[in-house]
């Protein structure tokens, strides 16, 4: 097991990243709120950089081993995979929260796959695009794909990112229509991407400080 690579980013850079993530998540929440015409609160209590195995372990330690993830690939100066991860048992609630109303359960199940994909898409896009914009970079982001399974599956997708051993682990809390759902955004990046990120964060810090 490779050790986590938090040393790649210094404390200042990590703070900057956390701020970026928060801005991105806020944008995602706005986008979502527009869509569902309800207040949506997405909060980010914590951002960490962990090793791939550590990420698998953290998720495996949750009550429910069965997880659902919305997966998108991003390409540009930074290459990686983004995953919005929920316990599978909560995904229906997420869908219900987004759809609203009292739809029969079968109908919700039917809509679940698409609704989950779109919701994840809105959140991940909002987050990634905002971060990319703030870092003055373009990211080509794929369409979403819904995955189900255990955490190890999500972090061993083929083809593996080259030396993609680092996971930016964002713990998020999602509140809409009196429902609270905890989940994660995980961004799996390779080392060159992480180094690029470090450079971009440095630029961002300089710009912000310069202002």
């Amino acid at each position: 097991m490779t050790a986590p690579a938090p040393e790649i980013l210094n404390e200042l850079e990590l703070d900057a990243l956390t701020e970026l993530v928060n801005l991105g998540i806020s944008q995602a929440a706005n986008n979502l709120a527009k869509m569902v015409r309800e207040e949506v609160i997405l909060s980010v209590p914590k951002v960490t950089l962990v090793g791939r195995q550590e990420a698998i372990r953290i998720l495996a330690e949750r009550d429910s081993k069965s997880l659902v993830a919305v997966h998108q690939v991003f390409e540009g100066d930074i290459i990686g995979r983004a995953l919005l991860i929920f316990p599978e048992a909560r995904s229906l609630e997420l869908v219900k929260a987004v759809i609203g109303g009292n739809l029969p359960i079968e109908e919700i199940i039917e809509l679940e796959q698409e609704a989950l994909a779109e919701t994840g898409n809105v959140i991940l896009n909002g987050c990634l695009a905002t971060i990319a914009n703030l870092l003055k970079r373009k990211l080509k982001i794929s369409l979403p794909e819904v995955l189900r399974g255990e955490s190890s599956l999500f972090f061993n997708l083929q083809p593996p990112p080259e030396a993609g051993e680092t996971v930016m682990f964002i713990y998020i809390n999602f509140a809409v229509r009196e429902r609270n759902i905890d989940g994660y955004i995980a961004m799996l990046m390779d080392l060159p991407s992480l180094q690029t990120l470090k450079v971009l964060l440095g630029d961002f810090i300089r710009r912000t400080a310069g202002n």
Partner: protein
Amino acid sequence: MVARDTDRQDIVLDAIDAGVIVLDRVGRIVSWNAWMESASGRTAAAVRGKTLTETFPGVESGRLESAVSIALGSGASSILTHALHPTLFPLRSRAGRPLLHDVTVTAIGHQTGAGCLIHLTDVSRAVRRERFLRERQNARYDAVTESAPDVILTFDSEGIIQLANPAAGLKFGYGMADLIGQSATVLFEGQVWKDTWQALIDGRHLRQPVELEGRRKDGSLTYFEVSASRWQTDSRIFVTTILRDINERREILAALRHSEAQARAAASALTELNATLEQRVADRTAKLMETEEALRQSQKMEAIGQLTGGIAHDFNNLLQGIIGALDIVEKRIRAGRIGDVDRFVQGALTSANRASSLTHRLLAFSRRQPVDPRPMDVNLLIATMEELLRRSIGEKTRMTIAAADDIWLVRCDANQLENALLNLAINARDAMPGGGTLEIATSNAVLDAPQAMARNLKPGEYVRLTVKDSGVGMSPDVQARAFDPFYTTKPIGQGTGLGLSMIYGFVGQSGGAVLIESEIGAGTTIEICLPRYRGDLAPQENVPKETVESRTDRNEVVLVVEDEDVVRLLVVEVLNELGYLALEAADGSSALRILQSSQRIDLLVTDIGLPDLNGRQVVDAARTKRTDLKVLFMTGYAENAAGSAFLEPGMELISKPFTMEHLALKISDMIAR
């Protein structure tokens, strides 16, 4: 060239069976393929250069705009699904039906900002198929659940109610819409539900219906029997429960249990009552019997008091005879005139014997006379008594004896039977003051059940002895009281009234019964039934009349135990005269010392009542070593020896007073055996 390329592109795009829109970097439509023309009813020419909002003025633009702007700005791809946007664009199929569609927005080119592609996919067919399937499924489900009297609830894996049928709302007091989305714990509480739920979620089957406590909206409790199963679609787990209302059943059961408990309580109370009743009856009976016994005893005591007049007089007369005769004997002996002394001795003996007989009657009456039952022939007994009877009844009364041949043996005390016969004969004589006929008859009788019952006997074989007179007879009233002690119809002084009651007692002791048949003026028949004895006649003389041979040459040793010196002296005298070696002991312990020594003893003659160890105890102790020791018990009365049951083989009994001859006969008989 460029135009040709554009034409070629358009041709390709038109061939795609999906909607394709291309926007330039500022969101204006540059391409609009044939599919879009057909679905939207807008030609490419009409929309080219416009934005999507301009093209579809009523479109729900927020999400679409942000998707486009994010694609153009960041290069991010977006998906807008029919699930969240059921009517994004107003599209129609070629048949004019609403066209359900998903939309994706992706950036074009390696460098973002070049424009974006909007791709619309017709999902109508898939959605319709799904809806059709669902509706068909729902129809089936609804058909079952809507009309079901049972509550049917479907929960998701978190225990949230997803489906509820009308019965559910009704039974729990909720509106159906209120139930959906509620947690199961709102309706069910307690460990039973927890266990049941866990079992279901774990995929275990409920082996049997579980009784569950539910809570209505108003807080009241309601009871169900739950059957449930887990099911799965995709990877989702659901639990559908069917809850049968068992409130009524519970009430009935409770009522049943209550009434059962009541019945049980009543039954146990009854049992207890019965038990105490039985106990009370037993107590009362015992008390009654005690009282009766006490009454009988007091009657006897009273009788003895009453008897004192008559019997004491008789006894005094007899004693007078004895004392007078002995007086004379003494004087004659002293004077040397022993010539006719025999006559007076005989007179004294006669008086003494009569006194003995009198005490026997008293003892028999008081039931303290030891009964010495032996097998015997009734005919033989009558024959030996015939002369006595004739003399007793006098000349005016004719007597006939009709003895049946082959009469069965009976087992009873010969003396008492003699007494009984004598009593009956005298009674008969008294009933015929002017003379008449006395008929004595014997016969074998087999009593059937009614006959036996009339005599208070068990059915079976009996020997019947009847004494019939042709006298005055008895009224039913007199008959009813005939067996009562001291009841007599005779003038005072002529009888004690004990005759019949003594007969009654003796016959009863012997296992038989006495029956009176009488009518005023038509005479009286007394019938005595004695049970047949199945066995041999013992070689036994009933009444010893002969003299025992006076000497024996053998040196047999007899131990005499008697605390009364005079009696011991007499017995030893008899033994000496018979030629036996007599040893004496005045109490039980000194007797036992002799018995436990190696001294030869052929016979033990012992009183039953002794100062220390009683006779029986002496015998029991002695017999542990001398197992075959012959024993002759002497007794004045035999309270301890009721009946002869206590006599073991090699033991016999002689009642005081006895004649020396009788004693001698008994002793020699026992030693010889």
